[in-house]
């Protein structure tokens, strides 16, 4: 069952990713990306990270991608149009070779050394919201707080950038 789910979700993710890149229209790309993210949530679930999987759907596929779609809709015209011209064929190898090289490398590595399995047994409740929450508000409290500040700054920053004609309260 796990095997099937992995191949299913994995294939869906790769497909989603490829379609995101290939599709000309930004809207279609975004939709494919949501597809990939939902599949990623499946992968997380398979990796015993249920809480993360849920958040992946809620935050990523939900909130962030909605934001993207929102902006695309807001900007309308040019964004919805496809890209005007394709890349010059002469440059294709330049783009393709590095990732392919990495893939070849990975392939040879696996051929040489085989695969590695998960060995460590997992405690009960691993990856559950309770477990993650304990860590988040315990061991990683400082990081948690810092990230909250980062988010706050991002909010203010986005506001400052987006506000029209610099009508900011402090200017």
């Amino acid at each position, binding site marked *: 069952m796990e095997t099937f789910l992995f191949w299913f979700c994995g294939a869906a993710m790769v497909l989603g990713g490829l379609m995101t890149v290939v599709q000309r229209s930004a809207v279609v790309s975004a939709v494919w990306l949501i597809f990939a993210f939902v599949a990623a949530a499946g992968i997380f679930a398979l990796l015993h990270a249920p809480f993360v999987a849920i958040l992946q759907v809620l935050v990523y596929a939900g909130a962030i991608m909605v934001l993207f779609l929102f902006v695309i809709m807001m900007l309308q015209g040019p964004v919805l149009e496809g890209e005007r011209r394709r890349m010059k064929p002469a440059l294709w190898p330049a*783009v393709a070779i*590095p990732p392919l*090289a*990495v893939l070849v*490398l990975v392939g040879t590595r696996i051929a040489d050394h085989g695969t590695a399995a998960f060995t460590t047994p997992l405690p009960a409740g691993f990856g559950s919201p309770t477990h993650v929450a304990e860590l988040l508000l315990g061991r990683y409290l400082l990081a948690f707080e810092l990230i909250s500040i980062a988010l706050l700054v991002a909010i203010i920053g986005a506001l400052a950038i987006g506000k029209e004609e610099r009508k900011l309260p402090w200017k």
Partner: protein
Amino acid sequence: METHANETLLRWIVLAPLLGAAVIGLLNRRLPRRVAGLLACATVGLSFALSVVVFLRMLGLDPEHRRLTDILASWVAYGNLRIDIGFAMDQLSAVMALVVTGVGFLIHVYSLGYMAHDDGFRRFFAYLNLFIFSMMTLVLGENLVMLFVGWEGVGLCSYLLISFWFDGEANAVAGKKAFVVNRIGDFGFLLGMFLIGVTLLPHLAPGEGAFSFAVMQHHAPLLAPVATAIGLLLFLGATGKSAQIPLYIWLPDAMAGPTPVSALIHAATMVTAGVYMIARMNFLYVLTPTAMAVVAAVGAATAIFAGTIALAQNDIKKVLAYSTVSQLGYMMLACGVGAFAMGIFHVMTHAFFKALLFLASGSVIHAMSHEQDMRVMGGLRRKLPVTWWTFLVGTLAIAGVFPLAGFFSKDEILWKTWSSGNTVLWVIGFLAAGLTAFYMMRLVSLTFFGTNRASEEVRHHIHESPATMTVPLVILAVLSIVGGWVGIPAFMGGGAHFEHWLEPVFAGGHAAGTHGAAHAVHDTTMEWILAGASVAWGVLGLLLGWIVYTRRLAVAEAGRRFAGGLPYRILENKYYVDEAYDGAFIRPGYRLSRTVLWKGIDAGLIDGLLVNGSALAVAVVASVLRLFQNGMVRFYAWSITVGLTVFVLYLSFSG
């Protein structure tokens, strides 16, 4: 080296004029002119009074203990280098202090009249007071560095006062020239001091200041191996300050300053600082016959050299200036032959009669509406009676007519030169004495005899100077007559009091210094003969000068045209020494600095080739690299990808 009596009055002798200078300088316009002038005179007068008080106290002491000190504070104390801010007065500095403050006071009073209508009245008196302060620091400084402080201070005041009327380009240039030439001398002075310091410092006991005169004298044997070098270096300093060959060139130009300044600084006091310094360092000079010989030779050469130039000058102050240079040569000559006391004696008498001559010439200039060219003077004898009589006294004194002050000092110098076996130097000195008499009489003749050659308007304004100016003249005239009587030599039945007074200071000098005199026969007959000869020679010079320039002007004209006028032109142009210095040092130096160093090395080589060259190299590399900086985000991303890939590959193959 014994414990010296403490005398806290010394500091007030020095500081009183400084106080005056500070008050006048700071309050400036808020101070009424009268108050400023009187304050300046009062502070110098106070200095003089205190000097007299200390002098009298000194008389009451036994000769061996006539050294009073007053240490104010430690100035520099680092490791075993100690320099104190302190003053000391012994017989030598007592003489100098009395002369400086006394003559200084008279000249201050004189200036009240002379500068009465000048805009810079207050500034003038502030500078003048500052000068007295510096000069007293020089004279009373407890150590060589304090002396140097005063030395530089008087140089500064000289600079300020020469360029006092800074409107005129010439005045400003002359002031700068004086300062710079003095600085060249200071270069030698500094190195001499360093040599002393480095030699003595390793051997000092704690608390001994290396530059203290007493300490140096105590350790004089240590200095013996380097005495010649020190002596010559210090003498370079003295040639600057006391206007000896080759650094005399600033003094004649310095006459651009107000006349009281010429009298005080460039005749009576500051220029004798070099002589004072050498006399002060006598314990060192007696260790080095070579340096002494150089001092004597340079002194004699300067005496005759400046004397010849004075023959052909037309500016009344320039004549006096060259005469000063010449007289300073005499003083150096005296020091060089070991007769330090005579050098100082001449410093004193010269201060009287030369100050007198300058002040009197100032009176003439004042009367002539600031005209200084003797060719348009003449016949002033009747219109300026006081000036005329006092000027005559000064002339007779400088010519060495018995029994005026100049006779005793000059005669003694010549005698000591003769008796130390330096016949050549004696001949030079003797010739120069005749020259002095001749050109001084030329000056008198052109100025006071004959008919007045000035324009109608100027002639109309000729008047005798006010009392503030004439009273100092009279006092100085009296001093020029009687000033020499303190040193009537033994062979004339005098007590040679002056020499005996200074004896403790020059004790070392007399023991070892007058090497020639030690085996010379002390022949009073010879002394009489020489004295008679020099008086006769002087009178001859005077008569000749009077006859040629009052009665037989045609002879003078013939002299001028002698050999196509070439010798005269050379003299008139001061042997072209200024031009030679200009061509040899100043212009090439300027051109070197400008074209080679600045434009060549700085802008061309370093900046052009190295700095901008490397910048160019960077620019070439950068222009290649800029192909990559094309502003395309995607290109950047691709670059990162490639880099990352290479990195991953490297990692996996290396590990």
